[in-house]
């Protein structure tokens, strides 16, 4: 099984391609999107994506806006902010909006993979709990 199923959202095409290659080699299943809108579209089509790596500065819908939308529509999906624009304010803003963490470009690939693992684990734990709650509810109904 893959370490995680993630989506990488960035308007810089070469960056996305390079990252895809490297992460795939490390057992990460990776989808790509080149804009905030595209990301939301893909997320609505498939629910296997666990972690989204989101660039902050993008034309059209910017990172923070996309983050808000993801948290609104797909609350279980964890988001890691990625930025070449090293502002502490956007990082803090992202955290406030529910991002899991943030990283600065260029980033160390191993750091990134570790973070992705953590994010995926958190998401899976959440899902587990939801399933358990459901089961409990069904079984308690029987009585």
């Amino acid at each position: 099984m893959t370490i995680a199923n993630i989506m990488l959202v960035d308007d810089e095409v070469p960056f996305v391609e390079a990252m895809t290659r490297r992460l795939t080699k490390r057992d990460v299943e990776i989808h790509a999107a080149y804009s905030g809108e595209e990301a939301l579209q893909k997320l609505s089509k498939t629910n296997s994506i666990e972690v989204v790596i989101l660039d902050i500065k993008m034309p059209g819908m910017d990172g923070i806006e996309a983050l808000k939308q993801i948290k609104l529509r797909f609350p279980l999906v964890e988001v890691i902010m990625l930025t070449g624009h090293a502002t502490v304010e956007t990082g803090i803003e992202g955290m406030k909006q529910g991002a899991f963490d943030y990283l600065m470009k260029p980033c160390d690939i191993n750091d990134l993979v570790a973070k992705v693992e953590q994010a995926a684990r958190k998401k899976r734990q959440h899902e587990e709990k939801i399933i358990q709650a459901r089961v409990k509810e069904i079984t308690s109904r029987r009585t």
Partner: protein
Amino acid sequence: MWRKSVRAPYYKHLIRNMIFTILGVSFIPVFLVSWTIYYAFANAYHEKINTHLVTLVDNHKRQIDSFLNARLADILFLSENFTFAQLRDSEFLQAKLLSLKNNYAGGFVDLGVVDADGNQVSYAGPFKLSRVRYADAPWFQTVMKNQVVVSDVFLGLRGFPHFIVAVKRFDGDRPWILRATIDFIAFNNLVENIRIGQTGFAAIVNKKGELQTKPRFQFNPAQGCFGRFIDCDQPITREIYSEERADENGEMTIYVSALLKNKEWLLVYQQKVSDALSDQRFAQRLSLIIFAMGGAGILLMAFLLSIRMVNRIATADQEKEMMNKQVIESGKLASLGELATGVAHEINNPVAIMVEEAGWIEDILTEKEFGGNPHMDELHRALKQINTQGKRCKEITTKLLSFARGSGSAIGMIQLNEIIEEVITLSSQRAKYANVEMRSQLNANLPEIKASETEMHQVLLNLVNNALYAMEKIGGSIEFKTFQRDETVVVEVADTGPGIPEAILGRIFDPFFTTKPVGQGTGLGLSICYGIIRKMDGDIQVKSTVGKGTTFIIIIPARNGLV
């Protein structure tokens, strides 16, 4: 100091305008007042003087007339109350003379009784005048005709100036004359007493122009109208008459004349106009002096005020220019900040891509096909280098961004040590090319101060740039030191450059002062620094030794961080 400014001609113009305006506005009232005093008052005063003199002369005329009438009355009384026979007796006459002399200080010298033929039949007095004949004397002829006479002054038989008062009486139907001589001196004193000022005097003339009194000053009655005082262009018809005209020497004189003794005599009072109006002349002169002094004062004030005002304006203009320059510098810095942000972001992305691709190559190299490749080490080393340089790019852009971030002049609590380190980083490249080593000795417990990050950057960068410029040919070092002293935070920036000569050390903070060639320096850098530090209630000082180096000392009260 306005002369040193670039806009000196404009200021010169301004000064001239101001001076003329002040002079115009001030002189007009002063002139009006002085003119009023000079002419209007003068005329009124002159008239008053005239009136006064006329009154004076009138009074004296009355006095003299009254004197003469009194003497005549004495004789009339005497002749009325005693008969010809009584008075013929010399001893009787003598007694009467005595009583006249004692009781009436009228100046009676002698008494005489004269018969109708002019023979003096009785005489009382100091002279030997018994048995004198007066038949030819004009006074005798007049009194025989007119009953009474007051004669002109004449020397007569006695050789002294005197005049006669005589009255004709009848003894039965034979006329007889009682005659008295009036002492000229007493009479003269009456007239001579009229003296006013320094040149005023009076005299009496008769119709023939002969003086009846001895005037104080030279007076030729034959001159002018008075010689024949009824024959003038303007005959004297009024009792009192006054006029001004030039006398025999050409000096303006005021003449006041009054008719006496039934128009037979003329009392003439004259005084030089300049003397009569001496007070007025004095006031006029005074007003001229006041005008002149006031005028001089106004002129002086106009100059001083204008120059001082224009100096203030020049200073204000200069400050405004400095402020403008500072605003522009700030603006430049701000846009630089924005540029930096854009650039940083633009660079980060390509750098990130490069690093990822290098990483990707490294990943591929782990495939087993590459195992045992002799070039592996070198390949790994090269790829690591790419990674390292990528990280370095990131550091630089981070620093750049943090500098740019602070490029609002927002005031906040800042740690000077951080600022210094940023400045060192920013200047490190330039320092390397100038062969200058940057060192720092920063107190780790430095308290924060309340200030604007941008401004502190500006100040420190300015000092560093100046030092680098001074040392670029010879190299050296710049050392930053920070420490706390009492209630203040102190930053010392010391270089080992050529130093600043004593002569100009006091001027380096002056605006527009620069030792750089034209076009290279604005001369504003240090003055802006000075302004910034002063605004924080701090101080910036400089110590320098030629040949050894320069140290700038910035002192900022730490207390301002508590505000």
